[in-house]
């Protein structure tokens, strides 16, 4: 792993940056977007994530709502990661992320900035925050696949 991605200082900065300047932080009026509203049961996050899929490709993804640093930053990073990817690619990113959260395996090529959350799995009470956006995307992909 590159040093860049091992340094906790860098992790913090990545999260700070995505929390204070979340990417793709808006919603779309376009009715062809998929939409998932996630209201966490154990914390107070309340995010809506939207995604446009064109012929198996994620052509756009965006989100809005209120959330803590962890949920906001992780969702922001995720939107960056999967925009322009195929559904299959997005699924392997999400699965790699879950593997990292489970403290099993770290795939830095796929996860890129998301490696900032490599230790969040040690804080059981933050796992829901760190995965809320991923759950939303997963749900929408499933929706798309079953409607095919």
């Amino acid at each position, binding site marked *: 792993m590159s040093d860049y991605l091992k340094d906790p200082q860098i992790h913090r900065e990545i999260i*700070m940056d995505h929390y204070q300047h979340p990417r793709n932080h808006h919603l779309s009026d376009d009715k062809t977007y998929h939409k998932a509203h996630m209201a966490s049961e154990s914390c*107070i*996050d309340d995010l809506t994530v939207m995604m446009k899929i064109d012929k198996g490709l994620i052509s756009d993804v965006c989100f809005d709502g*209120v959330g803590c640093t962890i949920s906001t930053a992780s969702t922001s990073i995720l939107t960056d990661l999967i925009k322009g990817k195929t559904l299959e690619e997005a699924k392997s990113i999400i699965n790699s992320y879950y593997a990292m959260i489970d403290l099993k395996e770290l795939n830095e090529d796929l996860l890129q900035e998301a490696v900032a959350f490599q230790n969040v799995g040690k804080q059981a009470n933050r796992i829901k*925050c760190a995965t809320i956006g991923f759950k939303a995307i997963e749900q929408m992909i499933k929706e798309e696949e079953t409607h095919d």
Partner: protein
Amino acid sequence: MLNVKEIRKDFPMCVKQDAGNGKVYLDNAATTFKPYSVIEAVTRYYTDESVNIHRGDYDLSYQVSDEYEQTRKTVARFLNCEEREVIFTSGASASLNLFAYGWAQKFLKKGDVILSSEAEHASNILPLMKAAELTGATIEYIPLTEEGELTIEAFKGAMHDKVKLVSIAHISNVLGFVHPIKELTKITHEYGAIISVDGAQSVPHIKTDVKDWDIDFLSFSAHKMLGPTGVGVLFGKYALLDQMDAFMLGGGNNARFDICGNIQLKNPPFKFEAGTPAIEAVLGLKAAILYLEKVGMDEIEAYEHELKTYAVSQLKDLKNVILYNPHAGTGIITFNVEGIFAQDTAIYLNSKGLMVRAGNHCAKILVEVIKTSETVRASVSFYNTKEEVDRLVDALRTITLEQCIDLSIM
């Protein structure tokens, strides 16, 4: 004057803290610690009298039934009402649902208005929303002040002839304002309406007198007032209870029924108590009330207010802290740290041993009044100390966003 040092010896959770576990509990609006006397009342049931109630077939059952009814007497004295006006439920939420089902759904009709506030707990407002939907009644909201307080003037302005039910919390769980229940009740009755009071946050913290206030219904939970979870109370004026429908049916609430479906229900309060109740929790509630009475409700109110005032005076000086309810009269302190999401603040405080709650506190529609979607709530009880408040203030003095993040990713 209340002796906190001595009081803390009565609570095992406080004893552990004072022995040095480093924790500070400031989430008393969510639930409270239990004194030994309550724990003993519960365990005595298990070890000495573990039988069912409401039957006189053998001595022990008779004895436990009697103790169960003694709690009803104790509650009646504590609220200043009649015994038969005290219904045991499984908690404040159940009391509020029973009222909404048994009274509001039965007696409201199209065109009637329910007057409430935007600071209500979900457990109060949601059952009313359902009653409104089913009956065709509508809910109107009394405008609150900028700080989220409900004033008599605003109430008078909102009241009108179509209002048949006023339903508000005596003390809001988010902002801690004590509403002028006696005056509101007087006005309510002048319009021929009835008032249902959510006392979940008031009964544990200030003296209750339903007769003096003349309120029609009151709901609260034991677990927020030193008692066990799983039990609450609905007080209702007897004449109103008598007209009300039972929410649940079953063993214990029917005197007789036959195969044709003719059911003869008992009289209130038994009509509303179906099935085996939370026996040991009810016995624990009695011990909790005796403890509160021993300390004194007026003393509790005064001391909690003193703690709150002390906290506000300290927090006011911290530039990074936004206080939402500095003027509220009870022990609820609602705030945010500039630039830090409420939950991150709570988790940071947790790392310092401080237990507070982040959230919208189940009063989700309130955000449209105080204009912030999430807050941190620290709520004191009479077993809290000024030193504990200092711990909170110190932690907030040095909090940074970086530290909050580090806590989660390290």
